[in-house]
């Protein structure tokens, strides 16, 4: 390579950098700046007053407890499942895939109201328990509710990561231990589990981040004494100048970064994917009868729990009255009529915002991936670092940052403050989902051997033509995956949305569901809108899955010819 980069590449990098600075770096630093200054000079007084408030101290501890306990409860669900699926002859692939997409297509706040009706003090389960066995279980009391609902939704992150890690262990790892005399539980404890540890830690960190970030679920469950809810409430009720909300934001960012940093630190230098070319994964065994009873029992139990918010929301959407009873008393289609009369524009908003976010994400993702892997442009890794860093910024914090940073700006050519411009919501989605889309694009480009491009150049295609005719078509699978993931996860985003929606007419469906869920009367229509959204997202996921499968098959055929 004679030149390290070309002018268009540098210009492209500059545009992306500018976007990331305006919509990620500056807002976050604004939040930090406000938290640490008083009248322009550095101060810790806001932190002092924060920790003087009993409510804030409580919120701080509660957030940590909810985050950690959600990880613990998720692990309780996920560990046995991962073990069964990887170690026994068991057709679990479909189950894993299904479980893996459920939290993507339905976020916890949607199902939260239904969970109250099913597991609350006078919910279905406790009504049955109370009647038959004379006791009830406080599933949904206070923090329990948040932990229970979050763990049920996010345990697939641990399950998926752990399953991949277990499947990446070469069978020779286990066989050599057996050959040297180890077996059974000792073998699992000394060899299998340590090797799968990185997968578990990655999944656990992700669960913690998701739970810590979530503001809507606690609010729907009427739990306000946690950090995200307090940050939101302080800013929306007291005002954009209240420093306590900023302190809460800074603490959330620090905790998220600590979780991310901690998980990478624990696992530094431990890339344990030991599976070799031509090697085989760990051997699976046949279940003995009593093992089969236990395994299937556990799987059915977890499946019932996982499906309960989905079934609950479906029941709720068709119910007229549902309280103090195991099942709804009367059924109706009225809720759907209400939704189709009042809220189709919300679905349209969701499609618009998420379409913009998904499109921008893959554009930026492909560009950064290309700059990183195919040029030696200075600062290309900083670009990747900043874009990826968005993972650690909770949605509420980003939202507060936007409100504060852009409060004195107006939309060009319109007499409207920039903070109430709908495009800001789309940009927030773009920034928040960029890390995932970027990884998808980078992975797609990494798989593409550079000789493919060299061959094109050798046959007379210039740089631009090569990218267009060879790189992009071959990356299409990764690009599509990135777009779909960004689109779908943005569709169920609420943490930043809740801060940035200024008029109901600009609200996306996720915000609409939340609004409905605020009142008892709105639960029915809210559930109906939730069902419609989940159905649309589900269909989208399935369709993209089919398209990508077809593509993969084509490429596999090509590989087989080699």
């Amino acid at each position, binding site marked *: 390579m004679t030149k390290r980069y070309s002018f268009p590449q540098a210009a492209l990098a500059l545009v992306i950098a500018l976007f990331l600075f305006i919509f990620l770096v500056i807002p976050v630093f604004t939040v930090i700046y406000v938290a640490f200054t008083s009248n322009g000079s550095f101060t810790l007084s806001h932190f002092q007053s924060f920790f003087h408030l009993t409510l804030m101290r409580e919120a701080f501890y509660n957030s940590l407890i909810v985050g950690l306990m959600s990880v613990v409860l998720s692990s309780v669900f996920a560990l046995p499942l991962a073990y069964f699926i990887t170690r026994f002859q068991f057709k679990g692939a479909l189950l894993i895939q299904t479980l893996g997409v459920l939290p993507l297509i339905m976020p916890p706040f949607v199902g939260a109201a239904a969970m109250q009706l099913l597991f609350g003090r006078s919910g279905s389960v406790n009504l049955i328990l109370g009647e038959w066995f004379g006791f009830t279980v406080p599933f949904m009391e206070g923090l329990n509710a948040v932990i229970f609902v979050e763990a049920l939704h996010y345990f697939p992150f641990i399950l998926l990561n752990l399953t991949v890690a277990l499947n990446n262990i*070469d069978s*020779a790892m286990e066989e050599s231990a057996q050959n040297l005399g180890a077996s059974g539980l000792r073998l699992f404890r000394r060899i299998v589990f340590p090797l799968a540890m990185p997968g578990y830690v990655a999944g656990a960190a992700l669960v913690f981040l998701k739970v810590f970030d979530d503001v809507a679920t606690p609010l729907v469950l009427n739990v306000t004494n946690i950090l995200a809810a307090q940050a939101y409430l302080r800013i929306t009720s007291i005002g954009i100048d209240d420093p306590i909300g900023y302190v809460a934001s800074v603490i959330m960012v620090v905790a998220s970064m600590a979780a991310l940093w901690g998980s990478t630190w624990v696992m530094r230098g431990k890339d*344990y994917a030991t599976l070799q070319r031509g090697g085989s994964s760990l051997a699976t065994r046949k279940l003995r009868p009593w093992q089969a009873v236990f395994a299937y029992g556990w799987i059915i139990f977890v499946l019932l729990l996982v499906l309960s918010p989905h079934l609950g929301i479906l029941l709720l959407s068709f119910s007229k009255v549902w309280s103090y009873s195991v099942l709804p008393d009367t059924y109706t289609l009225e809720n759907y009529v209400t939704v189709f009369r009042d809220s189709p524009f919300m679905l349209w908003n969701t499609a618009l915002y998420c379409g913009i976010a998904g499109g921008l994400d893959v554009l930026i993702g492909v560009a950064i991936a290309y700059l990183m892997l195919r040029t030696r442009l200075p600062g290309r890794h900083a670009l990747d670092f900043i874009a990826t860093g968005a993972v650690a910024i909770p949605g509420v914090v980003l939202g507060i940052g936007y409100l504060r940073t852009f409060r004195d700006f107006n939309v060009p050519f319109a007499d409207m403050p920039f903070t109430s411009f709908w495009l800001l919501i789309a940009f927030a989605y773009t920034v928040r989902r960029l890390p995932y889309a970027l990884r998808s694009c980078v992975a797609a480009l990494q798989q593409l051997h550079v000789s493919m491009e060299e061959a094109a150049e050798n046959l007379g295609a210039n740089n631009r033509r090569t990218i267009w005719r060879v790189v992009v078509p071959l990356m299409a699978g990764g690009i599509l995956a990135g777009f779909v993931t960004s689109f779908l996860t943005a569709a169920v985003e609420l943490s930043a949305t809740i801060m940035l929606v200024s008029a109901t007419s600009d609200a996306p469906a996720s915000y609409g569901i939340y609004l409905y869920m605020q009142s008892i009367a709105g639960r029915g229509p809210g559930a109906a809108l939730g069902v419609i959204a989940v159905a649309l997202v589900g269909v989208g996921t399935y369709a993209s899955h089919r398209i990508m499968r077809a593509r993969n098959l084509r490429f596999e055929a090509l590989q087989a010819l080699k």
Partner: protein
Amino acid sequence: MAKVKVEFQNIALAFGKTQVLRDIDLAVEPGEFFALLGPSGSGKSTLLRVLAGFARPQAGRVLVDGKDISAVPPWQRDIGMVFQNYALWPHMTVAQNVAFGLEERRLPKTVIAQKVAAVLELVGLAELGARRPSQLSGGQQQRVALARTIAIEPKVLLLDEPLSNLDAKLRVHMRMELLALQRKLGVTTIFVTHDQEEALSISDRVAVLEAGVIQQVGTPVELFDHPLNRFIANFVGTANMFAGTLRPGADGMVFESAALGTLSLPGAPAALAGAVEIAFRPHVVTLVEAGAAPDVGLIWLKGTVAAREFLGEFIRYVVTVGTNDIVADQAHYTDARKFEPGDAVDLGIQPEQIRVLRA
């Protein structure tokens, strides 16, 4: 270390409908360095895994030191195996890897420490105990894998393609080291390889497998000089082969074929009369200029040089005889007579060097 005998008796194994091993009968003598040689998919690794307990045959028995171990689980067999990819655990140091088997045997800590140090010394890695496997070179990793296995003082040592992950120079060096180590320990050793040079150079005896069947068992020299069939003749070294008929003639046996005409093979066993194949190695063929006084002791054929390859120690000629090609290797030294493509030549072959195989 007590030397033990290993016997496979009528082993048959199938994965689903694929028959991987068919009726394997094989005895490995105490203290032998024994090679299982075969192309990929021949079942040689599976046979090794049967002995280690990782593959379960549908029929047959495995005897170690005269005792049937078919029902013993892998972790109680005391048969040390070095895996092809070494299978070093990345979450443990070199010393922890080596100590693992000893810990599983519940030896006292002090004994384990001594043994680990001794065995690392033996493989020349005494200084590297605290390293992680990922910090070692391929050759060092293999020594660790070896150390880990011999630390438990196994009854039998199994090596699955032990040299395949090393580069060519190191491979030659390591195979001499392996042999030296085996002689020192005296442990019965079975190793699997697809590389005939590797098998012939260091093993006491070799079993050649193909399609799940043992084709021949013997010393390296026996295999090379007296291949039992077409597969062995081609797989162990290279051979010129021609099909034809063997029948009694005036002075002993005569081989007739369309390709070579009638050849007199006085020493051929009369018992093989009928359809046969003959095989001879490229280096037993003598090439001379056409018409140069032929030696009466040899069989002479007429041909034309079609191509040649210079291989250093010798030149490999492809000579067209009639419509067939014969490969002839001629020793090379400075000023040796060379032939060009197109040259007419006479090919001389000693009848005793021609093997007759049942077709």
